[in-house]
């Protein structure tokens, strides 16, 4: 009887230890890849160097925001087709190397979706079989073609201590379909409910307390509406980072992650 009780206690302790070391061990990661290809934008057209020729110029083609808790991950892909603006997000969710495209109607395997034939989208699946990220956590990553020429250059920057909701990694999750935008660069503001605007303008004169005493203030909701509608585009922000040598653009050495298809 006593031996059985000890065994049960040991099993319980082992079970608790396993629980502690199990799901909680999945480390969240969040980062952004900004993808360039050799060439330049001219009049809304991407001009790429002839095959076999190298070029010093790089053209921004895509930004991908990643959210990962291995083995699951989510990638929000925005592409530019003119070099100045980014399009709407295409959302992929996945587990290991298996990727699904989220659409308003549901989830479709990437292999069976038209996007599966797009080499840039396929290259955005940067995970191994266990769902861990391929390549460095941050910095400049260069992918080469079989010829040795540069295929893509990825500038990767990581988010500090990510806290996103893991429900976003589930294809059928309540909020999986919601577009989750890193760093607020795009138009999340447009998704806010009308009630935000409706109720915030209803307030009259306030008396605010300051260290120098009470001050009457009339809230200026129009100024905040202007702030809500003001956006700095992704392309402009990347140019700003690049010009300043900030984040991944300051990386002293390249990390080669593999071959670009």
């Amino acid at each position: 009887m006593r031996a059985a009780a000890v065994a049960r206690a040991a099993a319980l302790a082992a079970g608790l230890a396993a629980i502690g070391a199990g799901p909680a061990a999945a480390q969240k990661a969040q980062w952004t890849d900004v993808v360039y290809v050799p060439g330049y934008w001219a009049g809304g057209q991407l001009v790429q160097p002839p095959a076999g020729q190298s070029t010093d110029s790089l053209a921004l083609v895509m930004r991908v925001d990643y959210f990962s808790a291995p083995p699951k991950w989510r990638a929000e892909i925005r592409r530019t087709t003119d070099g100045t603006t980014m399009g709407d997000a295409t959302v992929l969710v996945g587990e290991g190397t298996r990727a699904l495209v989220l659409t308003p109607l549901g989830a479709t395997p990437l292999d069976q979706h038209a996007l599966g034939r797009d080499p840039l989208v396929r290259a955005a699946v940067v995970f191994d079989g266990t769902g861990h990220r391929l390549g460095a956590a941050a910095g400049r990553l260069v992918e080469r073609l079989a010829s040795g020429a540069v295929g893509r250059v990825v500038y990767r920057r990581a988010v500090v201590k990510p806290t996103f909701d893991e429900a976003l990694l589930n294809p059928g999750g309540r909020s999986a379909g919601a577009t989750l935008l890193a760093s607020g660069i795009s138009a999340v503001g447009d998704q806010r409910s009308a009630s935000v605007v409706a109720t915030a303008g209803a307030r009259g004169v306030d008396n605010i307390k300051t260290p120098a005493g009470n001050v009457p203030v009339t809230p200026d909701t129009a100024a905040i509406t202007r702030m809500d509608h003001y956006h700095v585009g992704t392309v402009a922000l990347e140019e700003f980072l690049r010009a300043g040598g900030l984040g991944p653009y300051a990386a002293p050495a390249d990390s080669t992650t593999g071959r670009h298809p």
Partner: protein
Amino acid sequence: MTRPSSRAAFGAALLLAAGWAAPARAQSLLDRLRQAANVARALLPISTPKEIEIGRGIAATIAGRYPVSHDTALTRYVNLVGLTVAGVSPRPDITYHFAVLETPDVNAFAAPGGYVFITRGALGLIHTEAELAGVLAHEVGHVNARHVINAIRKSDAMREVKSQIDIQGAVLDQLVGGGTNMLFMGLSRGDELQADSLGIEYASAAGYDPGGLAAFIGRLSAHAGEGALAAFYATHPKPDERIERLHAIAAREHLSGGVDLAARYAEMAK
């Protein structure tokens, strides 16, 4: 072995007995239950949409106190620097908006939901983009740590709030008013120091010289007697303590390197 149901019944009997036998003690118990209920109410989370709604109201009051600048080039520059540091911070559920306030007062404010302001007076004392990044990252830290929202959750106005839907109308106005007063009277010392920690981390992760925030705070000391700094000194911990702590964080976290971009700041912000 006592079954749970009989244990609960025994406990309830004891409580009832205590109530009949000693009314004063029962009253005390009821008080404690009420207090526990108040604590539970105070812990009611405020959803992100409601946080934005409250933040928008607070931001409107800040913009009523000090006019928001119409200088488009400066606004764009401050947004670019702000989004650079916000880009490495972990709140993808909100959009950050940055604006300049036209006042010679030296200060910066962060309303919940991502509305961040810096005054023209503060920009005049800043020498490098790394310093601006440090100040904005400190404000982003306040937003990310939900300092104002957490203080609001503990406020009296939340007593009537039982769910998110109750945060509207007069209750919303009360929460906005309370949050605005907190910002103008100053957040807690602990909140300010935590925002410093987050700020240096974000600025450094974005690629800026991590010494930017400390350099700016140090420069404020040289202007300590000036009227434009009165509100800042009344609402923030002592500069020496903050600088010492920032240097300690940089050493502990091995934060070094980065760029200060003084020339770009001189070109864009003057």
